Each structure stands twice: as structure tokens, then as C-alpha cells.
């Protein structure tokens, strides 16, 4: 097992039922104020022509880019990436300039109305992951649609899942190397 961790997450949209347990648990765990969200699940559909329909499910949150564009644009160093690959905001240094919000192609960041600082998903780094627990969204998910762990550990759930699943990286063409990946809806083409 590698000593340096590199956290990643897999979202299997086939297992997601859009129940919003994850986004609600995120709100509770991270005290996210009303009207803003670190995590949303979008239900897109039904699409197609009656009766041949599909519905897609999307996780909307920070995708933890290896080459995170939100970090170099930050004028104060409030945006930073930890040694285990998690991009965070130090709200003490944030001046609310919104450069990072503009730089993020995933619309993952927002200004927290209570702190005035930029805010986003942290993988529950401080409150859970650094204590050996899973992020709140992962542990609450009724259907096991989320798999989280250390991608440097070849035997971790996430590494095994990445080997066996047809996962795609969101907006891969941007070259930002996101560490939150999605298993797309298999009902699209086959069957």
C-alpha cells in the first residue's frame, strides 16, 4: 500500500435513484446554509418518446481535479490542494473575489452567504476522511451508488471499482484530470 493517499470517488448513475439522501447529509454534516449546495443530484428526464424513455442522473459537486484551475487563480492562497489530492478553501484567507468560482468549469463553487468565503465539496476532509471515515454522502447512500477511497491503494474499493466499471471523467477534454468519475446510464444504447 502506498503511503501517500490519493482520494477519489466513483458515482454509478445506474444505482442512483435521485433520493437526495446524499445532498441532504452533505447539508447536515457541513452545515451548508439554505439556498446553496455543495452537492446536488440532478434528475434529467424522462427523455425520448413515449413509451421508450430514459432518465439520467447526475452528481453535481466538485470533481477534485488533479490540475485544479481554482487553485492558481486564487490571489491569497486560500484555495489549495492537500497532499492527498483534495482541493480545499481556507476561509480565513478568502477575500470573496470569486476568481475561483469563475475558473471552475464544473460550476462547483459558490460564495457561502454566512462566511462570505468561497465554498464547495471537501470530501468531508476535516470532519470525516481525515478520521478514517467515508464522506457523509457516501456512507448515507441507500443504494451504494457512491464508492470512495484511496486510488493509490490497489486493493481499495475505489481502485477495484475503477478497474471493473466503465467510468467516464466529466469534461475529460479539458484535461483537468478530475478524481470524481461517473458510470453513465447503461440504458442509453444496449438492451
Amino acid at each position, binding site marked *: 500500500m502506498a503511503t501517500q493517499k490519493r482520494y477519489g470517488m466513483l458515482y454509478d448513475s*445506474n*444505482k442512483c*435513484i*435521485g*433520493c*437526495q*439522501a446524499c*445532498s*441532504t*447529509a452533505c*447539508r*447536515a*454534516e457541513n*452545515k451548508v446554509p*439554505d*439556498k446553496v449546495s455543495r452537492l446536488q443530484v440532478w*434528475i434529467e*428526464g*424522462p*427523455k*425520448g*418518446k*413515449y*413509451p421508450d*424513455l*430514459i*432518465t439520467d442522473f447526475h452528481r453535481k459537486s466538485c470533481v477534485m481535479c488533479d490540475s485544479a484551475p481554482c487553485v492558481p487563480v486564487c490571489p491569497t492562497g486560500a484555495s489549495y490542494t492537500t497532499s492527498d489530492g483534495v482541493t480545499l478553501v481556507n476561509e480565513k484567507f478568502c477575500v470573496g473575489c470569486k476568481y475561483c468560482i469563475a475558473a471552475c468549469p464544473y460550476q462547483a463553487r459558490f460564495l457561502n452567504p454566512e462566511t462570505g468565503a468561497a465554498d464547495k465539496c471537501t470530501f468531508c476532509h*476535516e*470532519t470525516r476522511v*481525515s*478520521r478514517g471515515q467515508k464522506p*457523509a454522502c457516501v*456512507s*448515507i*447512500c*441507500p*443504494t*451504494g451508488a457512491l464508492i470512495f477511497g484511496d486510488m493509490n491503494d490497489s486493493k481499495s474499493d475505489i481502485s477495484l471499482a475503477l478497474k471493473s466499471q466503465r467510468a467516464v471523467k466529466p469534461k475529460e477534454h479539458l484535461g483537468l484530470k478530475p478524481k470524481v468519475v461517473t458510470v453513465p446510464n447503461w440504458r442509453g444504447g444496449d*438492451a
Partner: protein
Amino acid sequence: ATWAAGGKVEGKADFVRSFCEMCTSRCPIQAKVVDGKAVLVSGNPDWGATGGTLCARGVSGQSQLYDPQRIQKPLIRVGERGEGKWKEVSYEEAYDYIAKQMQGIKEKYGPEAMAFGCRKGPHMSYLYTFAKAYGSPNTHNHESTCPLARTVGLEVTFGTAGLGLDYGNCKYIVSLGRNYFEGINVAQVRGVMNCINKGGKLVSIDPRYSLTSAKAHEWLPIKPGTDLALVLALNHVFIRDGLYDKDFITKYTEGFEAVKASVTSYTPAWAEKETGIKAADIERIAKEMAAVKPKAILDWGWRTTFTPEEFELRRAIIIGNMLLGNLEVPGGSFFSKGPGFINGLVGKPVVQGIAGFKTPPFPKPAKPRVDGAGVKGHPMELAPAGDGIAQAVPESILTEKPYPIKGYFAYRYNPVVTMPQTNRVIEAMKKLDLLVVCDIYMSDTAMFADVVLPESTYLERDEGFNDYSGGVPAFTLRQQVVKPVYNTRAHWQIFKELSEKMGLGAYFPYTNIDDIRLTQMGGKQDLVKMGKEKGFVNFGMKPLFLRDKNSVAEFVKQFPDAQSLVNEQGYIDKYLTNLKTPSKKIELMSQVAQNVFGRGVPVYRPIQIAESGQQLFIQGKTGLHTNGHTHNVPWLHELMPENRLWMHPETASKLGVKTDDLVEMASTVGKQQVKAYITEGVRPDTVFCYMGFGRVSPGLKRAYKKGVNSNLMIPTSTVPVCGITLQTAGVTLKKV
């Protein structure tokens, strides 16, 4: 447990085990508490069926807990009924008022003129005890607006309604409108998803493309109200092609020949004309199910009442399952294995059951129940008296037949929104001499009350044990997570105190919560301790299926006394021929239903719900709200503040409406303006909305008047034999 230092969360975190009350599924939970404040409600990680997971409603328990819009003190009405003018009083004053009024009703009309209703759950026995001690037979819960048809169908067939379905080990599930992924019960959600993950097939039969349909392998948009035709055709194919389990039918059932004769004409070609589902698909599904039997389930539904032929539909579904021989095998159906079942099987007490208190006998009611549930010779005699028929109460209030109901005690129950025909229910509430409501919010029923007693939410109260047996005996325990935020009390305290005021204290002989719990566990301190620590009590058993030799062997290893029951196949199947039915077997043909109602085996009578020119209005659950309960909870309201009326583009273009245009929807009993949502996900002849919106109580400041109230459209009705209400109606639509 001390929370590790160095993070953002400061102070001590404690974890309290309990069970949820955001719906009636009662999933085991664990709440994280920091500095006396609940900060995260999640699933109980030690409860295998849910494994620490929970739904959004459960996680939103803390949002409800700290909501300033909750009722904070007991209230007595000072203005006109429904006007919303209240005087804040102490519990003592509220009790005095209620006791005096109830005494007055008893003296003037007799105790049976008071009715008592609640949502089903472990709290129900406190209300029922109070009612019976007072002398009224008129108690009911919400079941007749939910799954009562299924209950009656199961009881007629098996002599008990205590059966479950083992989705997780199943290979083929056919759902007839049962919406697993929106009418969420977390353990069942996981079971169905496990079935799919292991390569099992899910077929969703639903006029609307639900989220369950979205996850299913096939969606078949059936013409609403024709599900019975489909099921009869499946049964026809099972029998016609000899695909049914002959050994099972011979050994354990009665009445196969009657069923066989009754389905001869119900061919798939016939069913295609009724249902709109192709005969070839019906043939194929029947064969696919039979190929994996007994691990195939035809779901017997939940809150899914489509037509007055409900009893036939539920019975036909149950018969279909028995033709597949899926009883008491993994991946099929099974009897709930509570302590009574296990002790009965072993022949001596090996598992502690939940014990009660010794109380004086109840006074014998002078008159029978107004709803006739369980009353011999009454058209509703097969409906269980323990559930009752909720919609009979407003009728008796308004018509004064069979005798007048003058007072109503509604506890954690909101009939104005959850019962059909909202306007008629409101009319009934207004006519009462006394309406007492015990709830956590100023609900649509509470707004018409004379007295409102605020109850502590489930996160603020200790409670006794709750029987949560399924595949194995188990009890869950509700525990106080935080101290009450407002001036509220627990129901076991409220009913005890109120009863004492009325001189009925002997029926509530406990002193405190420890006394309740210890008595329930037969004085066994170790079980109480286990309950407090783990949030549940179990007995180290693995799920027992009586016709599965592996699980029977495990069972005998634990309880050697059961060895003598095991047959040469390794089954314990004597139970299946010693049921509490007249024949002691599984009754495919019910002589009782035949004698009393002429409905021994299911037959098809076509039903027309919508008139020509009308749309069929159907409704259902969302995973983000519970019935008439959660719509004002801040987080859930934010996720889903309102509903809209789903309509097919063809329907919309005829009306000339676009998404979010206002449409006037009218039925024989109500009219309202609704926002349209144009979607391919519903049949052209059908419109749909999620239930529980369009609230009438201004006290629910967020939810008030947001969206469509589905029950405003539904006429009051009581379905033959099983007493359930209809949840469909014909509606006329026009652009506003």
C-alpha cells in the same frame, strides 16, 4: 465517545441509536450529537438491512426538530373554528379542557360518540388504550387510505397479513404501481437494487414513468385500473402452460380447481384489449417469471388503490405468487418471524416477546363500531378492527349514521390532506363539538381543532420497544437524542396524564420510561441494555425460510427443540398446513369471501373511473416527502416546494397548454388550479401528481397553498370487502 481533536467539529460528539419517524417505515437510525445539538442523523450502522444508510427525509429529521414553525405550546381555540386564533395554555389547562369536553360528550351522547384516529405505529396502542378506557369502540389508523386491501387479501388467503417479500434474493420482480424508489423504505430500496445488481429483472407496470420505471428493465404503461386483467392473464398462462408449481399447490393450497376454471377466458389476447399491454409481452413475462420460480415476485403493492375491484386485484396477485410456489423460500414471500411465530414453532418460549402492563378490563361498548370493521354480518366484517376504516368517521359526523360522532381525537394524523375529498373532511371537522389534535405542526386538521397538544418530535423523546420483526424477531428502541426544544411532551406521558385527569389512570400504570421498557422486556435488564446500546434487540438468528433446508438447518442448530419438526426434505412445512384459515391451508379460493360476498376467486368486472372527455387522475409518492406530514420541513420543502400536474404532450396540445401554464382541474367533488408539467412520462389518457401538496393550513407557512392537493379531487368511497378508499378519479381539464 469523544470526538477526536483538531477538526472543525468541536466539543464532544455522542452517538444515540434510535429509529426514524419521518415516515412509517421506522428505519433504525444513529444521531450524532455535539454539545447537546443534533448535527447529523444517519442510518444505524449495525442494522444489516440498511447498513448505516438513510433517505433524505430521515436525514432531515434535524431540520424538523429545530423548525420554529413547530407547535411550541399547548393551544386552546379562542376564535371561530379554523380562524387560527389561539390561547397558549399549560398542559394542565389543556388536559382539564379536554377532560371536561369528553365527559360532556359521554354524558350527552355516550362514549361511542367520540372517535379516535392516528397514523399506524408503536404509538397507536396508547391512543387505542385511552379510547377503549373511555368506552368508545371507534378507533382507527390510516391503513384504509393506504394498504388495507393488501392486508385483507393476505388475511383471507393465509389467516394472517404478516408476510414480507425477499426482494434482495429475488430474480424477477413485477411491480404493479409499487414505486420502490420514491415510496422509499430503505431496506426495500436496497433489496430491489441488490436484485438488479445481481442480474435480476425488474418490470414496472405503471401508467406513469416513475423513478422505479426509470430503473426498471421494462416499463409497461398500463391503462389505469386494468391491472387485474393483466394479473389474471399471467395466472392464465401459468396454469394453461402448466408452468405453476404443482407440488406446492397440491400440498399447501385449497381451491386450485376453482381458480383454474375462473381464469380460462382471461387470455393474454383478452388482457391486451383491456390493459393496452401486448399479449406477446404478457406471455413472455409469465414465462420469464416461471423460468426462475420460485425466486420470482409479483408484488402485492402498498398504497396502490386503483379501482373498487381492489380485493380481487390483491387476491389475484397473491394467487399468482402461490402459483409460482414462492412462499417461504429465499427470493420469494415469507411469514414475518416475530417472537410469537418462533415460540409457536419451537413449542416453548425461546425468544422474549414484548410484554404489556396488567390493566383493568375495558368497559364493554354499548354500540358496535360506526365503520363495521370486524363486525360479524357487516359489509366490512373482513376489514380488521385493529385498523378500522378511517373514512367512515367523517361520514358518521356528517350523516349521523349509524349514529352521530360528536368528538374526534386525531393523534399524529392529518385526515384533511390524507383522506379523500378534502372539502368534505373539512366540513366534518367543522361540525364536531370537540376536535383534539396532537401533532408537531399546525397541520391542516389541527387548524380546525379546539385543543392542540404539541408532541415532542421523535428525536426529543424516549419510547418503549417497537416490534420490528421480519425474517427474524427484532425490536427497535426509540431514544431521546436531544432535550425537547419547545414545551412539548412524549405521547406516553400525554396519554397517561390526560387519563389520570379523567380517572382512567389505572389503564396507564407505568411510572416512567424505564418502567415501560423493563416491563416490555419481561424484566430482563440485559435486553433493555442491548436496546439502549445497539438501538435494537435481536436474538442472533439468521433469516428463516421454512422451505429452505439451509436456513432450517441453521435454525435447528440454534433451537434443537425444533428438530422434530423437520421433514425428510429438510423443511419445516407443517406450519403451512396449519394456518389460521378455515381449511388451515392457503386459500386460493376463499369460502368465507364466497359465502359473504360471492367473491371466492377473483373475477374481472370492467371499471370506468373517467367519463368520456375526462382524464384519469392518478397520484403517488415522492421520495422527498411523506404523505400529509413533511411538506413544511425546511430542508425537504427546499428540495421540493410544490408539485405539478404531469400531462402527456398530446393532452397538452389539445388543451393548448405548456409547462407551468395554469390548468383548471375539476372532478365531481372538487376544483383547483394547477401548474402543468408536460412530459412523455405519462399515458395520454392519464394525468398524475405527487400527493400531499396544496396545503390548507396557514400555520404551515412554507407549504401553505403550494401545489396541487390530490385528495381534493378524489370522491369518498369504500371499496367492497376490504374497506380501502379509492385513490383515482376522473377529471376535466381546461386552460385557465
